[in-house]
């Protein structure tokens, strides 16, 4: 019996989703023994031509990480979709847009301007900006055009399953691979992680009051953080109550608040709106001016609540020229 074929691929990603697979340590040898990896650019020889030649549907599963921001990436994932029985969106970038998705606060023009015009270390008087087509002596060089809007994987192709996290924790990857190999899969469209909030699983949950009332917020560098007490109860923006569990509360164990990389549970359409709702309602005041003052301590609501999910939000991106992330 031939082994199931598996592909790994990356789009606009950081490579952390590849490293996390290496973090399976010796378990990776079992995975490699059980499946036939037909594509994995980082660790094994690349065989795009072979994949192209394969019949449609012949790859059992493709794990795709990274957000989508150019036609080239789009073509590749479309091809993999055709060749694959299952497609798993791997990591927050593929699932929700991830941190590169914060690019949706701006447009391409602004991005190029910052990097090639206003940056302080450019050659004095630099007037050059990369362009999609450059005439050089005896030839023309081309660069792909970037999309204005970063997209999630399921905004461009059909996705069967999601592995959440930035990057996904190795144990969830191992579970997912086992589930796929044994055919014991949840309904299509599921996120392959427990459908409960991180708080339920957090080692500090006993110190989390049933009803949190906050008379102020702190930024992590402003206070000495108690290593045992619920971070939210200390006034830090810990998003564990609206974030899916499965990471092992690693940030909290690092004595820092959860920033929400595992994304929402299945009942939530828009992670950021949900997080905002949960946090705002904890403000301990009924007075408009006081409420405003307390909430003003949240320096960057959009960047905080949509840290990993701006492209997946109901609004997808910021609009209007000159929108600059909440600053005048």
């Amino acid at each position, binding site marked *: 019996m031939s082994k199931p074929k598996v592909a790994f691929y990356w789009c606009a990603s950081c490579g952390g989703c590849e490293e996390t697979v290496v973090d399976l340590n010796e378990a990776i040898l079992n995975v490699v023994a059980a499946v036939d990896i037909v594509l994995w650019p980082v660790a094994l020889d690349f065989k795009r031509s072979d994949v192209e030649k394969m019949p449609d549907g012949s790859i059992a599963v493709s794990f795709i990480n990274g957000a989508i921001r150019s036609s080239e990436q789009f073509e590749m994932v479309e091809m993999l979709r055709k060749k694959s029985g299952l497609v798993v969106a791997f990591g927050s970038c593929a699932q929700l847009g991830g941190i590169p998705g914060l690019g949706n606060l701006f447009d391409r023009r602004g991005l190029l301007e910052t990097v090639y015009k206003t940056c302080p270390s450019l050659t004095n008087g630099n007037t050059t900006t990369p362009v999609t087509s450059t005439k050089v002596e005896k030839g023309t060089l081309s660069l792909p055009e970037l999309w204005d809007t970063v997209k999630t994987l399921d905004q461009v192709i059909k996705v069967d399953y999601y592995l959440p996290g930035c990057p996904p924790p190795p144990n969830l990857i191992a579970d997912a691979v086992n589930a796929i190999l044994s055919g014991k899969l949840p309904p299509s469209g599921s996120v392959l992680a427990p459908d409960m909030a991180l708080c339920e699983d957090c080692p500090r949950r006993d110190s989390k009051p049933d009803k949190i009332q906050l008379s102020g917020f702190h930024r992590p560098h402003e206070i000495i953080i108690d290593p045992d007490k619920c971070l939210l109860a200390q006034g830090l923006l810990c998003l564990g109550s609206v974030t899916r569990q499965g990471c092992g509360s690693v940030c909290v164990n690092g004595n820092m608040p959860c920033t929400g990389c595992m994304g929402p549970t299945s009942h939530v359409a828009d992670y950021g709106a949900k997080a905002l709702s949960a946090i705002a*309602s904890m403000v301990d005041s009924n007075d408009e001016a006081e409420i405003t003052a307390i909430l003003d301590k949240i320096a960057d609501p959009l960047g905080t609540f949509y840290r990993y999910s701006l492209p997946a939000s109901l*609004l997808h991106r910021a609009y209007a020229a000159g929108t600059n992330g909440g600053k005048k």
Partner: protein
Amino acid sequence: MSDKNSFEPRIVAFFCNWCTYTAADLAGTARMSYAPNVRVVRIMCSGRLDPQFVLAAFREGADGVLVGGCHPGDCHYQEGNYKALRRVTLLKRLLKSFGIEEERFRLEWIAASEGDKVQRVINEMTETVRKLGPLHLEKPDITASHETVKVAGVSAGGTR
């Protein structure tokens, strides 16, 4: 491009069942005229207003969103309107970062008896939004979108 005077803003109003919704009814029966630009969604309490509804309304084409709740101290569920106030305060800042002007989103306390206030607020808001012009959220062209489905699942008064 579009002539601002001929532009008819679309406003989605989330009104609390116990107060503003009744007031709007009253205004209707009393034939107090208010601008016909408003689509009213009834919610059981302003505290049940999930910020996701507001985003969804803007995404589906609203040029403005109005929220009406009971006056402080009058909420049927004690705390609901204060919760709404806290959420709306932060949501306003969020919307601004999204590029949506603050004036497009408004919270008002309107008692069941205040039909005239409903009329005034709606008219004011319609004029304000008319001046701002249509909200252009050019939708990125999204081919397969799972969240539309999910949002439909978040019914009014559903999640908190």
